[in-house]
């Protein structure tokens, strides 16, 4: 299945060739966020917020075809 990954802030350094951090990935059906992160070779300790289709999720969330996955380190503002 194909999903869209969006890396933000410091996580973009994992894909330096993609300045805006947005790319698609073809992944096995039914894998979790944690398994996706492992496939992308991103250190899970750096991920503080996960959003799937704009909804806050955890590492054990199961992904579906067409999902939009936003990954963020700990950041804040206001």
């Amino acid at each position, binding site marked *: 299945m194909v999903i869209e990954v*969006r890396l*933000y*802030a*410091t996580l*973009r350094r994992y894909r330096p060739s993609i*300045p*805006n*951090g947005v790319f698609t990935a073809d992944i096995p059906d039914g894998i979790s966020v944690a398994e996706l992160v492992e496939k992308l070779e991103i250190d899970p300790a750096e991920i*503080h*917020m996960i*959003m799937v*289709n*704009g*909804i*806050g999720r955890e590492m054990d969330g199961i992904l579906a075809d067409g999902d939009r996955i*936003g990954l*963020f*380190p*700990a*950041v*804040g*503002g*206001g």
Partner: protein
Amino acid sequence: MDKFIRVDMTTKQIATLDVPEKYAGLAGRALTSNFVADEVKPTCHPLGKNNKLIFAPGLLSGTTAAQSGRLSVGGKSPLTGTIKESNTGGTFSQKMAKMGIKALVIEGMPAEDKFYVIKIGMNGVVIDDAPAEIIGGCGNYKAIEVLNAKYGPKVGIALAGPAGEYRLPTANISFKDPEDHLRSAGRGGLGALMGSKKVKAVVIDDTGAPLSVPLAKPEEFKAAAKVFSQALLKHPVTGQALAAYGTDVLINIVNEAGGLPARNFTSGRIDFNDKISGETMNATITERGGEGKVSHGCHAGCIMRCSQWYPDQDGKYITSGFEYETVWALGADAGIQDLDDIAYLDRAMDDVGVDSIDVSVAIATAMEGGLIPWGDGKAALDIVKQIAVPTPLGRILGGGTAIVGKLCGLFRVPVVKDQAIPAYDPRSIKGIGLTYATTTMGADHTAGYAIATNVLKIGGYVDPLKKEGQVELSRNLQIATAAVDSTGMCLFIAFAILDIPEGFNALVDMINARYGLSLTADDVTALGKSVLKVERAFNAAAGFSNAHDRLPEFFEYEPCPPHNAVWDFTPEEIDEVYNF
């Protein structure tokens, strides 16, 4: 012995008094709000002779504690008609505290049509005529230069800009920062209150003052201050992220969460987010170099350094304190897709002295109303510059979002108590909606920043799209914020102390060591509650009721994409926020 300075602009009498006993343990917002509640007639006209303006440093201002340089400014708001506390960085708070000035009160109103400068020094207070060249449309950057030349480069300065002189409802009070740039007590039109008193500027010269305030227990203070700084540096947000990306890092997060209000609150997401994001701001500043700085502190003692200097293509300084809320309003809400256009607008708003939230949201409202084209940054800059003249259109824009919306005949006007709703859609992020609705200040995200827990996963997590847990979240954050706003601390310390208990304990320990007290965490909570109750009682006496604690009706029946959420709290549920 700390002093209370009162300046009567009717008689030009100056009184330097002992601090009234009832205010002895208060500072910052706790002091400004108690003072306004005690001395300002709740039903007075905000621009009439019975309103009063008060400046007060926080409990820890003037110490070596990190982040302790915030100044609270209070009065009855010309924008909302409620009580108002607006706080700011800059150099003013630390100077006041070191000089032993617990509060500066400006009251009365001159009969003559003439502007003045109040000059405060160790030898007393004088009232000078304002230099002619800074009156009648002179920008704030230039006014700082003129006042520095006249009073010396190291003085602190508070300024009513052109908007304040014209007593526009969005006028801010601008404060000189450590590098002669501008910080703002932005919200609620307190610059109009200052202008109504015919005070163009307050200049403070701490030459001859002690280097630090007295400490009851210096060793304990030093130890607690160290623990506090370490907590700030250890937390990933206050220790690293704020300095790297500034507050504008939120564009991508709030956009991804579907809560970034777009095109006058008709959607919660944009597709040009990366043109205006904190990541892009950081990359642009880094690439352009020159005078640009990715991180910068708004006051001496700031170690989080969330501000920045944003340069033009040639590396020349355009603006600083270039915040998420301003970028959001002009970018997502008004559709201006060029970060340079937004930077010039930010500078122009600082220069004319208006709240960059209310006026930026008013620009989007003006676009919906057909006054200028959607997304047109040049047209927006033109009408902001008209505020300095002021042309009739400049005056209208400086009236703020509520007035522009009303004059354009719109129902979709994002305000609560006439103050513009900032950068988080209350339909998709419900905790912040409760804060907008119920805070004593009119729509204000900082009054109870539920985004921390609804989106950023700081201080736990409460699902932003569900109602469960939001009432308690908004209530507890509003109480904590009222307390933090009384300490002189930057509110961003909350990111660290919500997650790191020893950081919170160190904050209490610092207050105890400064004053020789033995406060506990419960006392801090009690202080926050008492401030909110005093503010709410003032608002009630000014004519505000629970019926004013409501969001604009369109949030109830216009779904917000992508989640298609609506505002679904009942009046009874909203009213529970202040049931404590």
